[in-house]
């Protein structure tokens, strides 16, 4: 079982994708914040976060995505979350954050 978080950055023409593997909690959230926030500071950038391999997240992860969303608004960039596992998606729904964060749920992962 992996209780750490691995962040891989994939650059594409129009966007940058962060591929996350592991768990997002109080210990690993700073790792995510460090890689995610700078990406949102480029005007017109599209930042995609792939959560397919994230099997645990709590409010510390929600906090990072709120920071990233604020930063994206401020710098005219876009933030999008994709491939959330149902458990992770549920936290966005319970807190109603799914109404302000762009979440693509067409493909849901699991392992």
């Amino acid at each position, binding site marked *: 079982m992996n209780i750490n978080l691995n962040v891989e950055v994939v650059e594409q023409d129009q966007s940058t994708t962060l591929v996350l593997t592991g768990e997002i909690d109080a*210990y690993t959230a700073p790792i995510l914040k460090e890689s995610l926030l700078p990406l949102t500071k480029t005007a017109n950038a599209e930042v995609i976060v792939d959560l397919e391999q994230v099997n645990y997240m709590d*409010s510390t992860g929600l906090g990072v995505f709120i920071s990233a969303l604020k930063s994206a608004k401020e710098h005219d960039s876009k933030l999008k979350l994709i491939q959330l596992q149902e458990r992770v998606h549920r*936290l966005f729904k319970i807190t109603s954050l799914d109404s302000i964060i762009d979440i693509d749920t067409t493909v849901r992962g699991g392992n």
Partner: protein
Amino acid sequence: MERFDFIEMKLPAKPEFVGVVRLSISGIANRMGFSYEEIEDLKVAISEAMTNATTHAYQANEDGEVTVGFGIYQDRLEIMVADHGGSFDLTEIKQATGPYQQTEPIESLREGGFGLFLIDALMDKVEIKNDYGVIVLMTKKLSLNEVDLDDDQIPTTQ
């Protein structure tokens, strides 16, 4: 008196041990027969409590300790997360917690504040005591008619 087993852990109040507490509850809840979904709820709730204990109460003192207790009853799991450090203003914390409201501008969104709200949403009963340090007591009921104790749990989301 009602019979129960009790497990107690003492951990350094550091974020790296939040994952360790999560692994522990996963094992205990699995042994008790909780479903996959319920175990996931328990993992979030205990992590939130442990995160609060490590971040709020120990900002000034890095050598703090958190005590986690598990009361294993026939029909429920009672979890206690206690720190013995400084206390925080409970009324203020409770007011600052809750789901996102459509009327709020994104700029004023709290980056923290969802922790206690999630504990409340995911557990059956939550009590917070703030007399000496902070103690979070939370209960999750076991639905007895679902599966026998020894049955393997089949994840429903896969």
